[in-house]
């Protein structure tokens, strides 16, 4: 390359050269691309180390690790199975998303289309602040302040809608507190900012002419929202919801405080005081775990990572496709 450049310079002709010419530029691009490739490296490294540690457990437990529901680290041979926690994580994430999605879309709509600019800015700041709240603080609040309130809501749901299986409880004395219902609410509070900011971004990029056109044709606000805004923004909003889902699956400390973790699959009874969450289970068992059980927890982490990785990949593909202007500009 260098030779070529010298040749070109000597010949007096100028030619467009692609790629960096000077030594400084070469170093500049080389070092930044090393940093960029570090992101592949990091993902591979995480997977490799977790897999390395988890392998013995995965081998000895087989598919039972994700399908069975017993966790007996003292037994010979050891039985480590994760199904109740996996299912519990899914249930909680699902409750969280169900609660958070309407709230987030409302907030995004309010900020983008209803509030005057100054108020909209304040509302955006508040939502971002909610995103910045450490999860341990939300856990503390959830345990001491929110649990009694949400347990009360749960009781009322049970009293009036108890005939629906998901709101049924066996024993009203020992239910409601530490239930997936409350954990779902805490998770919802955490993922509202994520879904809101993605939805707002998508809403703000909708062509104003489209909305004005719908209004000019005699559409009401409601019909514009339902027939124009939502369909146009739907894929982006779904991507945002999936991002929230990924976050909800990985939530650890806050759920650890507000949920009673039990190694028994709670299929659908949201108000019973038993549930599970993989991440919180890792935290709960870690303190007194033997080295072998720790490997089981690594395997649990690996499963969790793979699931969130898939959810996030899917979410990002959808969000990026919904925002073509974000591609390499």
């Amino acid at each position, binding site marked *: 390359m260098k030779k070529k450049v010298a040749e070109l310079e000597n010949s007096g002709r100028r030619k467009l050269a692609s790629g960096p010419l000077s030594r*400084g530029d070469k170093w500049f691009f080389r070092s930044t691309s090393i940093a960029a490739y570090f992101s592949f490296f990091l993902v591979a490294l995480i997977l490799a*180390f977790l897999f390395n540690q988890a392998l013995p457990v995965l081998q000895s437990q087989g598919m039972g690790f994700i399908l069975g529901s017993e966790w007996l680290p003292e037994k010979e041979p050891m039985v480590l199975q994760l199904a109740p926690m996996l299912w519990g994580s899914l249930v909680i994430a699902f409750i969280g998303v169900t609660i958070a999605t309407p709230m987030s879309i409302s907030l995004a709509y309010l900020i983008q289309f209803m509030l005057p600019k100054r108020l909209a800015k304040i509302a955006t700041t508040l939502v971002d602040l909610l995103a*910045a709240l450490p999860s341990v603080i939300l856990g503390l609040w959830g345990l*001491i302040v929110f649990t009694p309130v949400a347990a009360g809501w749960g009781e009322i749901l049970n009293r009036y809608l108890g005939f629906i299986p998901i709101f049924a409880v066996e024993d009203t004395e020992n239910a409601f507190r530490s239930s997936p219902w409350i954990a779902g609410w805490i998770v919802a509070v955490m993922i509202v900012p994520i879904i809101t900011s993605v939805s707002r971004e998508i809403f703000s990029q909708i062509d104003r002419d489209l909305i004005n056109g719908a209004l000019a044709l005699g559409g009401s606000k409601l019909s514009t929202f339902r027939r124009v805004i939502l369909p146009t923004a739907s894929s982006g909003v779904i991507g945002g919801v999936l991002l929230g889902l990924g976050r909800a699956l990985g939530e650890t400390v806050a759920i650890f405080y507000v949920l009673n973790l039990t190694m028994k699959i709670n299929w659908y009874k949201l108000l019973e005081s038993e549930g599970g969450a993989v991440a919180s289970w890792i935290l709960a068992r870690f303190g007194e775990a033997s080295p072998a059980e720790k490997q089981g927890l*690594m395997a649990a982490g690996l499963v969790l990572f793979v699931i969130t990785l898939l959810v*996030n*990949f899917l979410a990002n593909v959808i969000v990026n496709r919904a925002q073509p202007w974000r591609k390499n500009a």
Partner: protein
Amino acid sequence: MTNDLNIQPWRRTSLFRKLQVLLAIVVPLPLVMLIALLAGLDLTMSFITIFVPVQLLAAGAVGYFSYGRRGVGDAALIVITTFLSMFVLILLFSVLWSVVSEGFKALSPQFIYQNNKYVEPTTSLEYGGVGHAILGTLLLVLLTTIVAVPLGFAMAIYLTQSQSKARNMVRTFTQAISGLPSVVSGLFILAIIEATGIGRSGITGAMALFPLMLPTVARVAEESLKLVPVDLRYAALALGSPNYRAFFRVILPAAKTGLLTAVLLGLARIVGETAPLILTLNPNSSTNLNPFDGGLMALPTYVYNYLASYYDTSQARAWGASLVLLVLVAILFGSARIIGRQKSSKSKGKK
């Protein structure tokens, strides 16, 4: 009622209509509270079960009088979105208020600077504090920042300055890391500890925070570098400057505040992380500033440890530490906002 507002939407709304709207906004709340008080109902519940329908009815009626049938749907849309949004804000303020009010009970000067060396769960609040945890958090955050910020910036530079085809892949992987559950990040470092036999110390804690900070810094930095007009760069290149000089002399000064925001948001992301630190740090109740050896306490793990015991004083300590942590987050977050705002107003002025 005629629906002349539908036919001529530019017509001035009459005073009567404005009054109707005002009534529909103002009346339902006190009315419902009165009913709830008289009937002795639970306030939060009656809010959802009575207030929302009443408010819907009132707004729907006004909408119907003004706009006919379509007014009802619009009113419902406005009431429901406002209600749900208010609900989120109420939850947020509930969190903030409980942390501030409960935290203040534990707060005192010595709570800020003393450590917890001889403190038992039942020791009165006059002794001991979070001094060691504040220092620990600052130390951890500093260590993480030293590595994560240059790397994140370099990623952002690669994503904005190079023409490489791999950029989309890099971006996808960075986004994938940003979805990494924090507890898995802790487990990852734990796996390294188990595999290599290095001891748990401040360094391992910082290592566990690193994968969480990196994607935030990279993403925000990329956004702020993108905001610099590409013409500036082309002009510099056309004047014969090499790429790296164009970056350091032209783009970097223009994007300075944005990059600072990236650092601050990255800090705000990790300062409250708990799970990775529980897995990778040994707790310590005295002050330790050596990141290579010994236990280290951070504010989030302090909250976690004290919440685990159910004594009142321990819980008070947890609230106090939460307040300190919240203030720390608020400072980082607020300064990121202020810097960000300065930048946007400046760029507006230029245009």
